[in-house]
């Protein structure tokens, strides 16, 4: 990419494409570090924007959600097409998987139908070649009527040519808009509806042929658009109904008829541009799938890899965490002893640096976990893991699609709960939302790392792994109970696409790891620091009094009897209470309540707890009320206070019961 500072030409480009076609890699290649992640207006679906400077042009790139078509069946499809219709980008780059041309061109046809100015980026050319496909790109360009740029995005092949084509298109004001003709009857129907729409000036800014097709397909979103734009919309609808009923005499279902016609056109194009060369070698994907999706070995291999992830997270990251700890401890000590007045030194040293240090020392663990998960995700393995789990999930009353939101819960429950939108059935979706907080998010990891390090040092990785397993087991059990009681019925069936295995690129792993890990850093710098300062203040009122007599001490004493059966003192009660804001605060507040520094925290905690009560505490932290952000997202996604309060209540009760059960069993088998 050539970078210059002055750029008079501005081009607005949207990236569209099916899921798993390498859209994110193309976006990262084009924009590099100049990205901005936000939300699409009115919804919480992630919107990525970035800037790319090529020659004398500034290219604004918007990454649209991955979609298979432009119907109004999902929020992602609505977002993508609304953006193209309302924002009218100069160019829509349609990223097409060359190794799966027939399916990918369906979206291309719909983009052209919508009136978008399309350039095709024919990605994964290397995979197509390996599959034995030979694609005549020149002929494809001619038949489909838009420029086609062959590419291998992970190797950055085709990126310059794409930018060149974008700039050339803008400079010469070129438009690539080919109309594909449907069967004679459908075309007549489209023309008649179009004639009706032409009578209304208000609709002139839209592509009328597209509106006509969508009305014939009974598209709810387009109907809403008509209702919004035209006062006399009933006249249009009654005309359209008349035309539809005439067409339905020939075609049972117009949606199917249009889809069939599109596939007929695609099949004609593909038959002319793709030749298949016979190859005898086995494929890496088929060989790996033979074992990774094996009936009996698939799940044990998944557990083995997840165990390796958590060993990597805890043990390999440990020296970096220890280094951070040394740095923060020294800084806290310097601040406490040198800053005057004493209370300010205490606030900065013990409250801010000490508390924050106890959160930041876990950043390496969190980054290492996301690094490992990014490698598994980018290699294509996680899709196989979902496939393996589907059968079990179905038997346990969960939908196969629930696996991905549950797995995402290991990172953060907020995006994980948002991702349940891909589940169509409302009951399946509600169950997945309600059990998602039981998946152990990265915020809980610092708590496990600390307690496992103190009480189970040689087997800390295993103890942490057992927490994740406990979360999974509880999520499954609760899902089963919910399915049998509140949401009776069977989950719907699951269809998913398996992407080919890939060696993940260093760049995409780094970007993914940073995107996820930096959320922790941002949180630590804002909500966590605010929470810790509040706890410090409460623990210093009245100033100079012993901490037991401070406000927070008195409050803790009120809570203490609730947790007394588990052997947890008032400090732990306070830490758990403030952990409701964000689970990371649990450790920071313990650091404040016990005093900063490894020696002063490790000592009191190992005196205050036994390995058994520490394990019960870890389980409690895993299960009890999700953080405030998760509560917010549950409310938003369920649209109901009833389900939000239900989630909080059942998790509190469950946490208490499980912690009690652990203590009880421990006593019975003599572990106390």
């Amino acid at each position: 990419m050539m970078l210059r500072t002055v750029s008079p030409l501005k081009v607005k480009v949207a990236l569209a494409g099916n899921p798993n076609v390498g859209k994110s890699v193309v976006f990262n290649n084009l924009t590099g570090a100049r990205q901005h992640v936000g939300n699409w207006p009115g919804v919480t679906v992630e919107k990525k924007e970035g800037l790319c400077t090529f020659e004398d042009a500034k290219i604004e790139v918007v990454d649209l959600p991955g979609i298979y078509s432009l119907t109004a069946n999902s929020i992602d499809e609505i977002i993508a097409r609304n953006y193209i219709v309302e924002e009218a980008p100069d160019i829509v780059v349609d990223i097409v998987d060359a190794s799966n041309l027939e399916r990918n061109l369906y979206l291309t046809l719909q983009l052209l139908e919508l009136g978008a100015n399309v350039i095709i980026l024919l990605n994964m050319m290397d995979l197509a070649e390996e599959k034995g496909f030979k694609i005549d790109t020149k002929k494809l360009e001619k038949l489909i009527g838009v420029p086609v740029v062959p590419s291998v995005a992970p190797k950055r092949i085709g990126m310059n040519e794409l930018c060149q084509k974008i700039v050339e298109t803008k400079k010469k004001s070129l438009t690539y808009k080919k109309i594909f003709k449907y069967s004679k009857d459908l075309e007549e129907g489209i023309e008649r509806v179009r004639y009706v729409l032409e009578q209304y000036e208000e609709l002139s800014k839209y592509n009328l042929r597209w509106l006509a097709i969508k009305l014939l397909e009974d598209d709810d979103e387009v109907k809403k658009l008509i209702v919004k734009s035209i006062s006399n919309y009933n006249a249009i609808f009654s005309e359209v109904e008349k035309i539809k009923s005439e067409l339905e005499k020939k075609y049972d279902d117009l949606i199917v008829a249009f889809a069939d016609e599109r596939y007929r056109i695609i099949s004609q194009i593909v038959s002319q541009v793709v030749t298949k060369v016979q190859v005898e070698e086995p494929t890496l994907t088929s060989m790996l799938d033979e074992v990774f999706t094996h009936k009996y070995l698939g799940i044990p291999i998944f557990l083995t890899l997840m165990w390796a992830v958590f060993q990597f997270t805890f043990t390999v990251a440990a020296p970096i965490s220890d280094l951070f700890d040394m740095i923060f401890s020294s800084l806290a000590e310097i601040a406490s002893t040198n800053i005057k007045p004493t209370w300010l030194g205490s606030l900065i040293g013990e409250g801010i640096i000490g508390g924050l240090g106890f959160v930041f020392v876990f950043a390496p663990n969190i980054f290492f976990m996301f690094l490992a998960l990014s490698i598994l995700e980018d290699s294509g393995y996680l899709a196989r893991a979902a496939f393996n789990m589907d059968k079990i999930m179905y038997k346990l009353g969960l939908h196969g699609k629930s696996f991905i939101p549950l797995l995402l819960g290991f990172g953060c429950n907020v995006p994980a709960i948002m991702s349940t939108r891909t589940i169509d059935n409302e009951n399946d979706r509600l169950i997945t939302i309600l059990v998602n907080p039981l998946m152990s998010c990265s915020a809980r990891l610092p708590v496990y790392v600390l307690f496992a390090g103190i009480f189970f040092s040689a087997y800390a990785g295993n103890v942490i792994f057992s927490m994740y397993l406990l979360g999974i087991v509880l999520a499954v059990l609760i899902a089963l109970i919910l399915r049998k009681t509140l949401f009776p019925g069977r989950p719907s069936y699951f269809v998913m696409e398996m992407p080919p295995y890939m060696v993940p690129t260093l760049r995409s792993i780094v970007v993914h790891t940073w995107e996820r890990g930096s959320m922790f850093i941002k949180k630590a710098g804002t909500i966590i620091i605010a929470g810790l300062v509040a706890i410090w203040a409460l623990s210093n009122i009245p100033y100079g009094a012993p901490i037991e007599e401070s406000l927070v001490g008195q409050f803790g004493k009120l809570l203490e009897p609730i947790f007394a059966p588990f052997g947890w003192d008032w400090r732990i009660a306070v830490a758990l209470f403030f952990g409701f804001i964000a689970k990371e605060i649990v450790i920071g507040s313990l650091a404040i309540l016990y005093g900063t520094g490894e020696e002063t925290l490790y000592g009191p905690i190992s005196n205050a707890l036994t390995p058994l009560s520490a394990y019960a505490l870890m389980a409690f932290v895993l299960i009890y009320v999700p953080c405030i952000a998760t509560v917010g997202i549950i409310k938003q996604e369920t649209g109901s206070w009833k389900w939000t309060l239900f989630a909080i209540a059942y998790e509190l009760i469950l946490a208490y019961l499980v912690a009690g059960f652990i203590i009880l069993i421990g006593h019975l088998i003599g572990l106390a």
Partner: protein
Amino acid sequence: MVNVPEKRNKAVAIFSLILSILYFFFGSLEITFWLGFDVTYLSPVTIYSDAFAGFTLIVTSLIFAAGFINLWRNEVRGYSYVLVGLFVASVLGILQFLILVANWTERYVLLNEDFADWTWIDDFRAVIPLWIMSLPLIVPLRSLKMRRV
């Protein structure tokens, strides 16, 4: 799948069987030790009382065993198991090597008191030599000329 000489299939099958037995042996030792029986004297390398680690060794053993069974029957899909077996063996071997490096850093760079008695022998667990032993499997796998998709 391509035709691979039967002789080679048998040779790879026997090598997979040896690896399968070794992984099973060390996996069983870790689990037996975890169950409370001190069997460390049976092992030339460090054995931990670690049920999860034992489980991962048994899983690797089963993958190689499946490779053996298929290749012994001259079924070329046995190479799929050999490939994944090598992959899992590499993940476990590299992971243990990284743990060794991390603990070495704690001992000699950060001078962490908790690691004062640490020696590299403590972290030289069976997965490292077994991983190195499995590396020759790369040779027959490379000769398969696999396509990616």
